């Protein structure tokens, strides 16, 4: 696949399946792996990095899951193109920005991917829509089995899979969900929830993971520990905890609607109106309005749209997607105009569908 084709590609994780009242966006399982024969990232030479890429590509070719995957070399891409991959959650900001020989291998529906030469030689990822922790783990586990049969992983009997950073050693598994919690933020309960999650060994972060701030009431919840906890246990715990968070959010949403129905409806419909008609939209404003519309969908106030519609819009209105669609660098102010156009035309399809139905 060519990188310019990516903007129009339908990533499976955005399709809105298993979204639990529009609250859970997606679920991701990531495994950190290293090859035992080569030095880890801090000591790797460019030749070592090339070796890693070559061995991984060969292993992927031999397997069944990634033999028709697309491969990008990071150094062959422009900055904007690398950022586009970050926006699609295919690579981490660290891989996009770091130096050296780095690569990305990903399946056509973007559900399976391998970052090569990030902090570890390999970061295997499975990302699926909604609350599907078990399926995401199964998918990345199958990919891991395939690669592990071809390349020798760094591993110790005592500490399991060895990683560059000691915080990932053991299973190397980081399992996370992307979840929308507007009512818990509004009722100022988010801090308590975060505290509770930390107590139970889960971490809460912003939209793009480590070191990022929450945008549009979207949070990433992931397991903290990788040593001494079995993968299945992590899957089980995260699923159970997510169900609890969903219930808390649902309760808070219902309470809001009960106590201030007119104000909540007004907030939702104003956001809908602004997104349908605004001429200039900053990224921040857009994400906040989309959050209000998503809340409207969760509450059953808006029936003309669904999670897939909102998830896709959320990605194609990111800065690098807008730039790619408009053929190169655009200043931020101009981007806000393009964003508003894009959003308007997306919402216009709803209005015409609605018109067709009535």
């Amino acid at each position: 696949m060519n990188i310019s084709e990516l903007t129009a590609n339908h990533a499976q994780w955005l399709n809105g399946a298993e979204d639990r009242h529009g609250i859970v966006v997606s679920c991701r399982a990531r495994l950190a792996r290293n090859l035992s024969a080569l030095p880890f990232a801090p000591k790797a030479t460019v030749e070592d990095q090339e070796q890693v890429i070559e061995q991984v590509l060969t292993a992927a070719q031999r397997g069944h899951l990634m033999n028709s995957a697309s491969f990008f070399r990071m150094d062959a891409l422009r900055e904007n193109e690398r950022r586009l991959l970050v926006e699609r959650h295919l690579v981490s900001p660290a891989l996009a920005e770091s130096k050296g020989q780095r690569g990305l291998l990903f399946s056509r529906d973007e559900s399976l991917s391998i970052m090569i030469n990030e902090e570890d030689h390999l970061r295997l990822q499975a990302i699926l829509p909604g609350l599907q922790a078990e399926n995401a783990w199964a998918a990345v586990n199958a990919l891991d089995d395939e690669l592990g049969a071809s390349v020798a992983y760094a591993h110790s009997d005592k500490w399991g899979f060895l990683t560059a950073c000691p915080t990932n050693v053991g299973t190397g598994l980081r399992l996370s969900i992307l979840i929308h919690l507007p009512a818990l933020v509004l009722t100022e309960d988010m801090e308590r929830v975060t505290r509770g999650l930390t107590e139970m060994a889960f971490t809460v972060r912003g939209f793009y993971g480590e070191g990022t701030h929450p945008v549009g009431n979207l949070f990433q919840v992931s397991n903290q520990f990788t040593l001494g906890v079995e993968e299945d246990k992590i899957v089980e715990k995260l699923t159970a905890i997510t169900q609890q968070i969903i219930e808390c959010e649902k309760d808070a949403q219902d309470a809001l609607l009960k106590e201030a129905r007119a104000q909540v409806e007004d907030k939702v419909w104003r956001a809908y109106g602004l997104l349908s008609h605004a001429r200039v939209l900053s990224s921040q404003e857009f994400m906040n309005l989309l959050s209000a519309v998503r809340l409207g969908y969760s509450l059953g106030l808006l029936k003309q749209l669904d999670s897939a519609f909102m998830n896709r819009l959320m990605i194609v209105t990111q800065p690098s997607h807008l730039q790619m669609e408009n053929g190169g660098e655009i200043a931020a102010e101009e981007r806000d105009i393009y964003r508003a156009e894009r959003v308007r035309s997306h919402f216009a399809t709803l209005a015409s569908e609605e018109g067709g139905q009535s």
Partner: protein
Amino acid sequence: MKCEICHKNDATTAYTHIVDDTKKTLLLCASCVPQNEEKEKAVPRPKEDESTQSVPELIKKVKVEFNTAGPSESTENTVCQGCSMTYKQFKKVGRLGCHQCYTSFAPQLERLLKRIHGAEAHCGKDLVEVGTVPSPHKALEQLRSELKDAVDREEFERAAQIRDQIRGIEVDAEGRSLR
């Protein structure tokens, strides 16, 4: 009184834990109380937000806790046989240089890993032996679920590709079992 975590069930247990040397008590329901096996673990789980601290910071803390009065010369200068990284360098960058570092710095890492993860040993997935032919079972299962998704979403071009992939694996597997 509702549970202070899920706010849904009635709180049945007063759960006391220690954060930054002060006792805190939460009223929790049965499903939110951390499970027994965790409470019984000899090693306490790390305190709040430790996973987000940088590794060099954690190393410093471990040193203080274990009462080592300043780094000993010999520990600092331990050199990894595999990549010649010194323990001092690791302390600075927080990343290890190769898989042998785990052997070379084993005593120091043992304490650090206990501190980070609150556990001493791996449990979970084993290493797949190189050269084993992966059973097509998992791959097939994965692809079949992708196929179902594609058909559900009427993405027929994608469905056709996945179907071909599945056929490829099945033909492959048949060939193997005939041999």
